């Protein structure tokens, strides 16, 4: 059976894999690259648990083929912290108890980081709409929203 050879960059590191044309980027990141922090909640782009960035753009990795990653720059939750230094969003999520089961957390962190890069000072409403594609069934979103707003404020102060 012939597979497609893909060379791509994941969290700054070049990786290569062979994939079936039907495999999604999500499948490839998990099964071929070992990025298990990227979660599958639905496989249909409705839950956001598999959120990653591709060339800086936030996408659902379940809605992109692994073959399409050729030559791209992929960012996942595994690349969010700077070595042993957590990203402020990660730190605030822990402090605010913004996660219960934690399965949606990687996707929400990646999505929130993408927002703050684009808009460092979002309103609560902007944040809620930005995150509308990231389902969380545990928290009712309250503490997630608070954690992101708090992280954003800290990041603005630090910059």
């Amino acid at each position, binding site marked *: 059976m012939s597979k497609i050879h893909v060379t791509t960059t994941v969290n700054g590191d070049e990786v290569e894999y062979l994939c079936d*044309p039907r495999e999604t980027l999500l499948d490839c990141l998990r099964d071929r690259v070992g990025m298990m922090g990227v979660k599958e909640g639905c*496989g*249909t*782009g409705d839950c*956001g648990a598999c959120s990653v960035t591709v060339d800086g753009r936030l996408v659902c990795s379940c*809605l*992109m083929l692994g073959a399409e990653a050729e030559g791209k720059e992929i960012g996942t939750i595994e690349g969010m912290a700077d070595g042993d230094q957590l990203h402020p969003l990660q730190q605030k999520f822990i402090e605010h108890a913004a996660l219960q089961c934690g399965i949606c957390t990687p996707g929400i962190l990646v*999505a929130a980081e993408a927002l703050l890069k684009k808009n460092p000072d979002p309103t609560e409403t902007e944040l809620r709409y930005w995150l509308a*594609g990231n389902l969380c069934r545990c928290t009712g979103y309250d503490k997630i929203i608070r954690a992101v707003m708090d992280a954003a404020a800290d990041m603005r102060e630090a910059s």
Partner: protein
Amino acid sequence: MASFANSKDSAKLGGCPDHGDLMNYHTPTSFSDASAIASATSGVTRFLAGGTDVLVQLRSDLVTPDDLIDIKHIEGVKDITQRADGGWDLGVAVAGAEMTEHAALIADWPGLVEGMDLIGSTQVQGRATLVGNLCNGSPAADSVPGMVAAGCTVTVTGPDGSRKVAVEDIPAGPGRTTLQKGELISKVHIPARGENGGDAYLRFIPRTEMDIAVVGCAVNLRIEGDIITEARVVMGAVAPTVVLVNDAATAIIGSTLDETALDALAQAATAACNPIDDKRGTIEFRKDVAGVLAKRAAKIAYGRAKGEAQ
């Protein structure tokens, strides 16, 4: 042109001892190549731009194409360019997020852009395209009423060359288009906005985000003074395809969008509905809300035409 064949023979389920479902993935670098691949295959073909529908269908086992043709390697598919006449040409792989980040495009066609922007999540916006939304053939496609109301056309490239087609002539019914075998859309053309015009798109969904439109309505109009001189009203999700409702336009042309005109607009919008009862809404509900949305969208478009901040 690169082509990756997963297997050569035509055996789908059961015929191949090595594997079951197979799919060939192609990455042509020109529309004519893409058309040639699609023309040559005898099986199910899908074009891959944003993939937000194609991959869902693949995942849900609804459609596993024999040939999947990724058109993002073709030059220019990500370009947004303004023509000399003031109109816009959009590449077929321009994602929603790229449109909503384009201030000049939004300034001209806020309704068209907001229709696109309403599709799916932020993540989906990073991939989804106007053309994908159009060719998916859903009567509830959020970007299509806005395109039709604006009077958009598309270039269709096929085995016999290219032709321009009005957007409203593409959908043929739920999940179907008028595109022939080997044909694909290669460019979207948005008319010049011109003076004193405004457009708007509203949809009704049960939640605030993430749903398929239960009813959608786009209004595009032009005024002279306070009087509406031109209008196009388009309804989505209320019939097998989006509907350009001439009676609704007639109801407001010549008016200042007063209460009488708005009521006539609502009536015409409701009358144009031929909806179904389904998990997303009832016939009665869709008809009622069609009128409500038509009024609300018309008011926004009118405000925009007058230059009021919206």
